């Protein structure tokens, strides 16, 4: 019950984990869009929220002063009022939607002077495997990215369909076996952001969360070097362990990962598809 009393104070803490507290250009764009659409919709919902109680109360049976015309059932001007402005609003919103859907398309590369960091994400039960093809390293349940540089993630699934969601950076995209999908994002400040799988996939679903750690480029390079030097490769045995259905207690980093792992996961179901 104390929690209920503290709601006005503590309630906002939750929002800090979401797009309200965006930390990159994509999520910032989404938040911006949120505000625009929200403002427009006030003009859509507002009249109804006002008119319903006012009209109902004013024309209540007990109010003898209100006009009563039981046969009145049509008016062209009202008809115009309820069809034309909403149609106009939807056309306006449609243009906005078209523009923003293309601008914030998860497949669209983020404009930047730097080449994007390539990451391959593999959805597993119940963990995320992130492969860094250019650094030849891999992590499980931790995504490390440099601040200010675009990140291009290609996703697939080694199991059922899952959805990679990073609320403060870019939203989500599905990962499906035998197919690839893509997500572009960028962090504009250093920090630890929450990532998760949003599509239910069984027993360990609720534990399938991971940290997205955004570091300065220098710190990121240091981190890569440290992982590469750690002598903990993603060999056949480690791969078998990772692919087994389980929840890992801690994130893991691998000093070396096979270059073709992503392609192999994809091919497992794709070979037979052709």
């Amino acid at each position, binding site marked *: 019950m104390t929690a209920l009393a503290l709601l006005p104070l503590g309630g906002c803490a939750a929002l800090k984990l979401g797009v309200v507290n965006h930390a990159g250009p994509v999520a910032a764009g989404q938040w911006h869009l949120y505000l625009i659409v929200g403002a427009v919709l006030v003009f859509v919902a507002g009249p109804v929220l006002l008119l319903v109680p006012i009209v109902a109360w004013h024309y209540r049976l007990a109010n003898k002063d209100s*006009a009563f015309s*039981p046969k009145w*059932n049509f008016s062209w001007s009202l008809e115009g009022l309820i*069809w034309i402005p909403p149609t106009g609003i939807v056309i306006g919103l449609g243009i906005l939607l078209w523009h923003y859907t293309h601008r914030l398309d998860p*497949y669209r590369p983020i404009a930047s002077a730097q080449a994007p960091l390539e990451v391959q994400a593999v959805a597993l039960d119940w963990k995320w495997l992130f492969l860094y093809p250019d650094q030849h390293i891999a992590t499980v349940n931790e995504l490390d990215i440099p601040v200010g540089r675009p990140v291009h993630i290609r996703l697939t699934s080694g199991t059922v369909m899952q959805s990679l969601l990073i609320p403060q950076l870019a939203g989500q995209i*599905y990962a499906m076996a035998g197919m690839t999908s893509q997500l572009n994002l960028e962090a504009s400040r250093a920090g630890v952001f929450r990532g998760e799988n949003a599509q*239910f996939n069984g027993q360990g*679903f609720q534990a399938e969360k991971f940290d997205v750690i955004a570091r300065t480029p220098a710190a990121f390079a240091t981190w890569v070097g440290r992982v590469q030097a750690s002598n903990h490769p993603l060999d056949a045995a480690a791969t078998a362990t990772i692919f087994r259905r389980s929840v890992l207690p801690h994130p893991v980093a691998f000093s070396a990962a096979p270059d073709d792992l992503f392609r192999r996961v994809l091919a497992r179901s794709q070979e037979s598809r052709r």
Partner: protein
Amino acid sequence: MTQGLWPALLGRFDWQALPFVRAWETPTVSEIIGAGAASIVIVGAIGLMALLTYLHAWRYLWKEWLTSLDHKRIGIMYVVLAFVMLSRALVEAVLMRMQQASAIDAPGFVEPDHFAQLFSTHGSIMIFFMAMPFLTGVINYVTPLQIGARDVAFPLLNSISLWLTGGAAGLMMVSLVIGRFSTGGWSGYPPYTELAFSPDVGPDYWIWAVTLGSVASTLTGLNFATTIYKMRCPGMTLMRMPLFVWTALCTSILMIFAMPPLTVATALLALDRYLGAHFFTNDLGGNMMMYANLFWLFGHPEVYILILPAFGVYSEVVSTFSSKELYGYTSLVLATMAIAVLSFTVWVHHFFTMGQNANLNAVFGIATMTIGVPTGVKIYDWIWTMFRGEVRFTVPMLYSLAFMMTFVLGGFTGILLAFPPLDYLVHNTLFLVAHFHNMLIPGTLYGMLAAYHYWFPKAFGFRLNERWGRISFGCWVVGFYTAFMPLYVLGASGAARRTQAFYEPAFRPWLYVAGVGALILLGALASLFVQLWISIRDRDANRVFAGDPWDGRGLEWSVSAPPPEFNYAVLPQVAARDPFFDGKRAGDPYAAPATYEDIEVPRNSMTGPVIGIVGAALAFALVWHIWWLAILCALGIVAAVIARSFARDVHRTVTAAEVARIDRHWRAAVAEAKPIPRHIETTSANRGLAEVPA
């Protein structure tokens, strides 16, 4: 045990399938809850049977209700089924919210697997076995009366639909006691529901329950589209039909076109699981996107199947309780048809995040927003209907007002979700859960409850208790806002749906509030049952046999409450849109006819119950791989259909003398009743005769 008599007889059943055995072996809270639920089903079933035996009610029940082909009785049985299933699914919702509120950085008391079954049954039941039976029941009861018909076009088919739905609901209940239910949610997405990931009986229960239910709904759609086209009384042109009939027609057409994709989807999934096909598997060419397309080709129109009849109810209720003609009838009809057509053009918005290109997403996003226009028009039409009226705040009217205010908020968040970039953020989160409850609770449940309060006196001859109606209404509204507004916040913070535990202490206050809201909603349901109990107790004081307690407008109010089996002693003639209301003002709508004629009514038939029960047994046999029983049941269904085709004497005649006796009895009661003005219509003075103001 893999060879021999046991699997031949009982398929893949073993003792572990019984929750009692599991609770005995591992007595965790989660297992004990499961065993408790199973006991409630068993004790409830045994108790009900014992009670019926004690009251010697079996014969009455079988002869008067279960085998009845009377659309009114079938309608009432649908609604009873809906209330039973609503109770179960709401209790499950409360369990889930309690679990989530207790599982913030803690395990809680419901284990992950059990929790997954809870959200799967909750969703499946609320859609297929609560909302669908409820609206089908109301359509069944009201439509033939409103179009001046004696029955539906295919009364036997109607009974078969009811019993297939009932059989499917029974299968859901059996899954509580024997085995386990699917954990794949109400949409049953493969490949998760494929053998490779869910080898147990759960998805099979889901497949067959949904298949039976969807076949039943397809048949209902065919039945009511035909009824409305073919059975209208003289003068009831299309543009004179009450708006509820229009929505029933559009819903029926949607059922005809939207249910088959679902049946195909579940059938293909069954082929994957039973015969090793690879439609939706990860390997050998399977592609689950095909399932997503099929499922949502059904799933999106389905929301309008659920919502349109409620729109019809609101149109009737707002007009009646404002004592006014419906504003913009033509507009409302056009808007209804526009919504029905548009509902087939937006299904991709359920998977914007599957990675198709931006053009496609944008087209479907814009199409989605387009539906907002006709929906908004409808809401304004109801506002202008109250305008210059005399609004009475009865319980159905309160639901209508709450609906308009709440639904518009759901529309607001729906437009947000229609924007693909915003959908990327909140898809699959509690925001989505909040949105669709925000549409379906006011848009379906409130509508059906308004219908229940509005037409209950017609169906049973006495009014429901007003005070408890208001208490229940208050709980539904307050409970809705407390339970679901926090979910918008949680969803916008990235809280995934279907989550058994949370690891963010920041979510705690919101989860607590949502939990309290769930309890208030449970209170709302409880007060509905209290209301029913009190109303039955006080029924003699609230009888409205004369049949017109609300100064009604449509034909259904022009007959006794409850109406005679044949609905109309003489089929009505219609010359305007609100025939009864205008008739009361133009002259004497209670003038006795000069002559009566024999009326043919359908004889009772056990074909419906047999097909429903054997159909459910077939499904059960398939779930457990009991092949001999499956073959037997399949043959049984064929045999029942063949046997019925030999029945020649399918009608019973109510003689003219009998019709005259029933009709004159009612007219005498009308003559005796005292007309009452509107401001005392909720008191015991209301005997069902409306005073017509000069």
